């Protein structure tokens, strides 16, 4: 054996190939194997918008980046230690993210004349051979050929054989990073349990990839990454959209409500619908509506009927839902609106991430229409904040936005999941026949938080009418009285403002309560900010990190937190939307770090900006 084993704390590896090469599966399996081993990790899948872009082209390159380690991992990694490429286009598209001295594992069969032409390599000479990769360690492997060789007696057709080549790569990479094949074999056996010949073929190729590493004469450095020191407990790996779906189910289970989910397919939110549709045994009712408006309107109908109506979409769909969200606000019914944000405006960048729908969530409706907004910081945090959105919607009888984004939706991380019993219980305040006063029912009678009761059809004696027209407080009857309108606008605003009393105080993620720079984030910038601030504090700088999960209304102590710092820096994947809100609300000169490239911040970008402010 000509390989050596080197111990290291963290590795970032990027798998790249054609969208038909099974890159996402390869990346996911590698991730799960490391998660089960006990590493901390973070992933970043990056796929093309086209379902099947022309094979071999730059447009068709699909990527999956995973950063795993024995140390705490916050982001999918700024630069890669290793790049696995299935063809010339994949190399060309991703070489810039590979560290100097990094590893390239290349399928040489993807570098033939045709692939070079499709990848627009003008010289026509393979970069594996022209010396341009001299500063990297290149491991060229004839993956396609070796896979064919391996399965030549399997009786499978060329197409089926070709489809297993990602398993060869996975086997080799698992060997290189000193991991077992068992989780992948288990996965394959379950996934293809009705097709044993496919299981056999994939496992055979997977082992062949592993053994190829073991037996090849090429001097190879293998890497060993120890388990991470994570808080004790039981973990699973989870992706953001899955966590969102679980959070919604958990919230309805802990409140005893029925979950109605009205949704129209849209990238990157559809996986929430797919996940929920699997859980009908929880009484979950999913409804694939005819359009975005019907999706939200059906959820409002469900809420009127006593279920928790939930709808989800991404920016373009949310735009269509605006009027109906205003209706839910007027009716004062619970409604949860999930926005898995993507690059905008218009159709924008459907498969890429962005945070540019914050103002849409907070302000994007006609009239004075305050809607509470919460956002998740990490894939697993989608569970917590989706749960919170449901709790607030029910406890305050009002629509609540839950903001996720494409990066959180498809990213994964280890999750120390709670038990059902650890989750809070909350209760809907349903009106009862005993709420009748002198034979009359007042649907808009309010409690001390200005919240009305939920009177659902089928309840004897509480027949009442609600609607989108301005209503008289108490009775709910139509009213065009000027003073009543002012009163109702004030009441609805105060009612939503009262939610601040019902959310946790703003904590600092890192750093002292006062200092030179507070890096204030929201949403998926969490990992990059945390990684950057961790470094900066270690380097002795006066920097802290706060991450907003409750964006409207803010936690009650939020202003106090802000006032502890000379500078407030707000990195956002938009042109400065939270910055604008913070400036106008608190009259402080918050500074922005803004990026709208469809890709997340790197740790380096944030560090650089903070250092600029410090100097």
């Amino acid at each position, binding site marked *: 054996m000509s390989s050596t084993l080197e111990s290291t704390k963290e590795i970032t590896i990027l798998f790249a190939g054609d969208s038909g090469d099974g890159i996402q599966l390869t990346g996911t399996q590698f991730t799960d194997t490391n998660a089960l081993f006990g590493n901390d990790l973070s992933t970043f899948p990056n796929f093309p918008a086209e379902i099947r872009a022309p094979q071999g082209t730059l447009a068709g390159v699909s990527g999956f980046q995973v950063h795993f380690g024995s140390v705490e991992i916050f982001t999918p990694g700024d630069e890669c230690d290793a790049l696995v490429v299935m063809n010339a286009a994949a190399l060309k598209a991703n070489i810039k993210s590979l560290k100097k001295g990094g590893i390239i594992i290349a399928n040489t069969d993807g570098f033939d004349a045709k692939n070079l032409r499709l990848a627009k390599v003008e010289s026509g000479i393979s970069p594996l051979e022209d010396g341009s990769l001299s500063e990297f360690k290149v491991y060229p492997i004839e993956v396609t050929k070796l896979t064919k060789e391996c399965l030549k007696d399997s009786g499978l057709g060329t197409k089926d054989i070709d489809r297993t080549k990602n398993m060869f790569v996975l086997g080799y990479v698992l060997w290189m990073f000193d991991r077992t094949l068992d989780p992948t074999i288990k996965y394959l056996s379950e996934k293809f349990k009705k097709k044993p010949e496919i299981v056999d073929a994939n496992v055979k190729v997977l082992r062949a990839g592993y053994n190829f590493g073991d037996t090849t004469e090429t001097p190879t450095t293998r890497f060993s990454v120890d388990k991470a020191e994570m808080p004790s407990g*039981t973990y699973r790996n989870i992706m953001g959209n899955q966590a969102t779906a679980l959070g919604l*189910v958990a919230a309805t289970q802990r409140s005893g409500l029925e979950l109605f989910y009205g949704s129209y397919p849209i990238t990157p939110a559809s996986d929430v619908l797919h996940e929920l549709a699997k859980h*009908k*045994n929880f009484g979950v009712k999913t*409804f694939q509506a005819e359009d975005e408006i019907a999706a939200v309107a059906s959820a409002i109908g469900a809420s*009127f009927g006593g279920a928790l109506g939930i709808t989800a979409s991404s920016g373009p769909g949310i735009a269509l839902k605006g009027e109906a969200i205003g209706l839910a606000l007027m009716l004062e019914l619970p409604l949860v609106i999930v926005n898995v944000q993507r690059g905008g405006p218009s159709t924008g960048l459907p498969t890429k991430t962005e945070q540019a729908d914050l103002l849409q969530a907070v302000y994007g409706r006609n009239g004075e229409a305050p809607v509470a907004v919460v956002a998740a910081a990490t894939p697993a945090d989608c569970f917590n904040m989706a749960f919170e959105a449901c709790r607030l919607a029910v406890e305050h009888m009002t629509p609540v936005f839950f903001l996720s984004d494409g990066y959180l939706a498809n990213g994964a991380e280890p999750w120390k999941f709670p038990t059902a019993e650890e989750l809070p219980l909350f209760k809907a305040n349903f009106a009862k026949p005993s709420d009748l006063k002198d*034979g009359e029912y007042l649907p808009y009678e309010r409690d001390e938080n200005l919240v009305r009761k939920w009177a659902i059809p089928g309840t*004897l004696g509480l027949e*009442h009418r609600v609607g989108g*027209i301005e209503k008289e407080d108490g009775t709910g009857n139509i009213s065009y009285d000027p003073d009543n309108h002012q009163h109702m606008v004030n009441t609805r605003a105060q009612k939503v403002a009262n939610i601040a009393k019902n959310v946790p105080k703003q904590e600092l993620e890192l750093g002292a309560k006062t200092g030179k720079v507070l890096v204030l984030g929201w949403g998926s910038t969490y990992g990059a900010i945390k990684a950057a601030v961790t470094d900066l504090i270690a380097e002795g700088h006066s920097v802290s990190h706060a991450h907003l999960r409750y964006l409207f209304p803010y936690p009650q102590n939020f202003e106090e937190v802000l006032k502890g710092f000379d500078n407030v820096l707000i990195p956002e994947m938009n042109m400065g939307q939270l910055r604008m809100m913070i400036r106008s609300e608190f009259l402080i000169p918050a500074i922005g770090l803004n990026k709208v490239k469809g890709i997340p911040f790197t740790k380096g970008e944030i560090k650089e900006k903070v250092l600029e402010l410090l100097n």
Partner: protein
Amino acid sequence: MSEVLNGALTAKDFETDQEVRWCPGCGDYSILKQVQKVIPELGVKREDVVFISGIGCSSRFPYYMNTYGMHSIHGRAPAVVSGLKATNPNLSVWMITGDGDALSIGGNHLIHLLRRNFNINVLLFNNQIYGLTKGQYSPTSEEGKTTKSTPMGSLDHPFNPAALCLGADATFVARTMDRDPVHLRDILSRANAHKGTSMVEIYQNCNVFNDGAFFGMTDKATKANQTLFVEHGKPLVFGENNEFGIKLDGFIPAIVSMDSVSENDLWIHDETDRTKANILVRFYQDPSLEGNFPRPFGVFYTEERACYEDLLVNQVETAKEKFGEGDLNSLLRGKNTWTIS
């Protein structure tokens, strides 16, 4: 009041204390009155009755019904009722809409409601005009109609609501009118009895912006010759003394004098015949037909088909049988876990 079961309720019990604010003389008053009369006779508890509307003159309706009600947003009532009915299939849900609400801004939702076949009753008040916005042409206005928005005449070809609904696979399609209370009540009862989306088009006179749109069909002097009231199993006859009949020659209907034919030769109405229903609802719009065909009223088509909400509840039950009642802890745990001590 609320302790009393519906059987003992009267029309009065379904009135609210809200002042009815349609224009004096509006056809909506008559429809409201007939609905309030019919509902107590249906054997439904008042607390189980829900009226949901969109936007438009007709959509004020729920405020005048002492039941549960929602005045929603323009065109979206079909989606609201879908979510409501999926949540609580036991409710008696009535959707109130108009020609603009249902066929223009809400056209998409209407066709999807019909194909899904939620068990609800849709009352489409067709006055062939936009009333609430004061007089623009609607998707059912006749071609060339001069209105505020079409001073040179409308260019739009109108929808035939009944034909549209048949095309969307509605399981119950009927037409009635504001000025025939007996027929209106009869159709409402039939609609309620049908399990599935019952589509009732109601011709309703807007005496302010489109007065007389249906006078030929409602006025005593002309009604007999211009209308045809169909009943299942009965021949298609019309006229003052039923002196005319309709015969079907292949797929072509023809008006015949009863002097020359016997009832047996006439078209016998069959509510379950989709092909003939399609011909029937197009009488007044088919330019290839000779003579002045009367406008048909009654139940044109009905079929039994599973309702969406029942299928949905069924799936939930099946999932519970197959996988057991959902266990949150096992959902949170998932399939692959590891423990750090």
